[in-house]
């Protein structure tokens, strides 16, 4: 566990150094610098419109997350609770679509979006999430598979339709799965550089990871300010994680529902 923390300690500590201290190789100076330069954080915020990018990232990630989770849950429900022809095939197709490396489909996809006029906008970043994401569908389905059938059956006897079963019974049971999926969807969107890079055309709409790229280049050596920016970028994600954690803690007891 200590191993995990070490790079973070370095991150925090180094973000308070100036460049001279950054390059000191003396052990003590690397891990215990003095004096501390808190102005790095002010510089980071001024250098690039971090708050704007932060807002863009938050907004985009939330949208992607909500859409992806909901639509994926719908599809997963269909896959796990109904037995229709072709069910196995669909499932295999879904897994297969994760297996094909995205780099291979990136360019044809971009060309496709170009032809239908989706580029230079947020469309390619949001619309695909309307339709569920293979990874999330897979995960949620696995969770749903492990839920006992009697729940469905008792509800059906009571005359509930499929959607009610879905929203009132299955979905709440899946809270841990949904939380994890939501977290993943949010983070995936948050960390994504490539898609915002090629589909957004104006600096105003760039997201946080893109903004971080502006801190270094061949002539700039202000790594310490970049580190401060990275720390700032971490904060929202930690907050989201904390919120999600609380859902995880509750867990579900079947007995409660009865």
């Amino acid at each position: 566990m200590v191993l995990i923390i070490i790079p973070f300690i370095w991150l925090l500590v180094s973000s308070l150094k100036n460049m001279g201290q950054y390059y000191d190789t003396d052990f003590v100076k690397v891990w215990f610098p003095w004096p501390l330069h808190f102005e790095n954080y002010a510089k980071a915020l001024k250098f690039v419109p971090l708050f704007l990018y932060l807002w863009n990232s938050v907004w985009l990630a939330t949208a992607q997350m909500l859409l992806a989770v909901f639509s994926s849950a719908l599809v997963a429900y269909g896959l796990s609770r109904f037995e229709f022809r072709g069910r196995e095939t669909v499932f295999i197709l879904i897994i297969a679509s994760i297996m094909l490396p995205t780099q291979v489909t990136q360019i044809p996809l971009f060309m496709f979006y170009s032809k239908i006029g989706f580029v230079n906008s947020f469309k390619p970043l949001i619309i695909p999430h309307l339709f569920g994401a293979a990874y999330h569908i897979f995960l949620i389905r696995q969770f749903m598979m492990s839920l006992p059938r009697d729940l469905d059956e008792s509800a059906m006897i009571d005359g509930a339709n499929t959607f009610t079963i879905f929203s009132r019974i299955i979905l709440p049971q899946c809270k841990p799965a949904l939380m994890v999926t939501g977290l993943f969807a949010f983070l995936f969107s948050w960390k994504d550089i490539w898609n915002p890079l090629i589909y957004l055309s104006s600096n105003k709409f760039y997201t946080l990871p893109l903004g971080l790229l502006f801190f270094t280049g061949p002539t700039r050596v202000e790594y310490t300010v970049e580190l401060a920016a990275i720390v700032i970028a971490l904060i929202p994600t930690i907050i989201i994680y904390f919120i999600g954690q609380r859902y995880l803690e509750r867990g579900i007891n079947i007995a409660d529902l009865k």
Partner: protein
Amino acid sequence: MKRRVLLTVLALFIFTAMIVSAGPKVTTITYTRWAGTEEAKDFQKLADLFMSKNPDIKIVCDFLPWDPYWNKLQATIIGGSAPDVLSFSHQNSAQYVSRGALYDITKLPGAKKLLDEMQEGTKTPVLLGNKIYGMPVGAGVRAMIYNKELFDKAGIPYPDNKKPMTWDEFLKIGEKLTIKKDGKVVQYAANFHKLEMWESLVVQAGGKYIDYYTKPTKILINSKDGIAGLQYLRTLVEKQIIPPYEDSWEGAFGSPDSAVVTGKVAMMQAGPWALSPLKEKKMNFGTAPLFMGKKRANRGYVNFLAISKNCKNPKAAWRFIEWMCGEGQMDFTKTGDLPANKKYFELAKKENPYGYPAEIMEAFFSELPYVITGPMVPTNDLTTLTEQTVMDLTTLRITAEQGAKRIEGQGNGIIANIEY
């Protein structure tokens, strides 16, 4: 129940439509270039200036740092939705020009005439046969930039800012400027862009890397002079005058463009674009021409502007380009490049619009005639080969002879397989 599901799906769609319509609006011409945050301000000012003189054109700029810029450029050109006005640096443009992936500007009004006004060496990257695919706008040249204080400390007189040093002279002061403490280097004499400098050294030694830059047929580096050039680079590493490859980019000694800023390197080879951090830090610096072997040679950059094939307003785009490469050249100099246009180059030499004293800019101006560009071929295999070889050379894993032989052997194979 079916209705409920469909309603939900519908709601999702409406929600999305609302988000999507809040997206960005379309504007007249888009312009993109690589630029750090400060450079971006200079380029934006340039665009603003053009807009004030041409109120019927609106320019929307997209500036990105160097690396992501090329990734995005590639994706958008391939995908068919690149910005209207594109910026290129010749070493990354060969593929696009040779495959005709840019808009052909030969027939645009004034294009041929404007190209004639450009420096000779800048024309090659934009031409494919008789067709013009871009317009040179600036030349990037590297000269020696040095930290005066470190020279003072070592008791070495400043290099002359007009006359280049010889290889031997450079070796001598190099050895004095690298300082070691307890066997570890704490200060290097210089930090060079090895992956670009090697060819300059080969040519300086009197040798040649390749027979022609466009449509080459033979690698010529495996000669006495070629090997001498490679060997000099290796010697600089062996004598610890320059850091070995592993330490020359993100370590304590910065990168070739930022080495002097760190305060731990006495000299670097960079262009005017690298001067502003030095000015910011109020460092006492000077410039000098690059050293010379039997002759002078210096790897530089030709920067040019092009129009994308999918551009819907080529005439408007062309007006912007025409201005930047013509009347606007003096304003263009504020961004740090030397003008590609002969007329304005002479003007710039006289008037020095750069914001640095004339004796600083002198070195850059004097290097321009000796600029070499490197091969312009539609494949990166050659670059991969030379990169790998120079990496091995400057980590002292292979000798200069082995390096030359490898480049010749594999290089000829690559050249033979290029399809034009």
